[in-house]
């Protein structure tokens, strides 16, 4: 368990993204800064684009697509979400 596990996540209103195949480029138009996401990040992003998701739902999306144990997956998803929230691209509701 970690501090993110009880929360729900959604894309912030400060972002707009371009999502093609396995890649995502995101713009934070409040800051004027661009971000790129790799394959796993893009998987997570696509899931969030279809609507708000809980931490468990996001982990399930990743484990369904990649061969990764639950513990590693949770750590990776938590790290990615923290970064996306720090850059104001994703918001958490508790």
């Amino acid at each position, binding site marked *: 368990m970690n501090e993110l596990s009880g929360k729900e996540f959604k894309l912030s209103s400060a972002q707009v993204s371009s999502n*093609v195949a396995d890649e995502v*480029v995101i713009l934070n138009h409040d800051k004027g800064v661009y971000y790129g996401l790799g394959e796993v990040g893009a998987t997570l992003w696509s899931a969030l684009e279809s609507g708000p998701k809980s931490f468990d739902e996001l982990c399930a999306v990743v484990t369904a697509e990649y061969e990764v144990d639950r513990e590693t997956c949770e750590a990776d998803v938590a790290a990615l979400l923290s970064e996306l929230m720090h850059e104001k691209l994703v918001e958490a509701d508790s």
Partner: protein
Amino acid sequence: MSLYRAFDLRIHSEILLPELIPLENADQEADVKIVRSTVDFPDLEPTSIHRRGIMAQSAEDVNGAIYLRWEGVAGYKAVNGDTLYIEPYTDDAELLSLFTVSEALGCILLQRGLLLLHASSVQVGSVAYSFLGEPGAGKSTTATAFVKHGSHLLSDDLTAICFDDNNRPFVLPAYPQLKIWENTVNGLNFDKSELTPVAEGINKFSLRPGVNFPAEPIPLAKIFLLHDRPELPATQKFSPVEAPIELVRHFPLSARLLRGKVHQRHFQQSSWCATHAQIWNKRRPAGFAALEKWVSEQHSA
């Protein structure tokens, strides 16, 4: 007061705009009005936009009005996407027209929500191709070679793109004028008697393909990012996901206007272009013979 058509808009103007297509019925309601007026400028910032060796200064106010000022030529204030105020500093009518139908009118187009690119565009068959690149990369020369081969000119230097309900991009026909260097005129074997020198002391000619200038927006099919870098492949598909970042580099107005919602819209529209059109990195063909060969291949493809 004269009425013109450009960028799919009816434009009422208090100054003469000989580059544009004149419309007969001057009583028709206009989409855009160009009005002579004094302009009260806020503090202006320098830009990277140069025309005839003059740098444009620009600013935006809290109400969304865009200001543009060219020392010794004219100052402009674009309001609400429908009114362009011009404060002339010269009596040279041709110079005023040249500066009015480029970036100044571009400010109005931006306010109307169009995607603006520093690009020249042509209609090939039923679709549009746009050529982007650094100054000197060959945008106008490439467009000229296409026109020589039978394509219709859509725009030179400033390309405006609109989108339909399915987010498909369409190039708006700007006005029928292409400005080309004398070496392009010679290299593509144009008859100089059909061309007009742009101005005294400037080695450029104006090509005015007045017939068959398209009236309707044309679906955008290909974007070519022209370059002159030997280390890159001659032709390379551009990653669509990077298109929104690349196309920002080709925004023709002050980069400071690309903030917040306007930046968001530019990003979104660029990404729609990448979805519906092919984007190519294209090394400019070496020499006019190679250029004409490539143009001919594009027509038969």
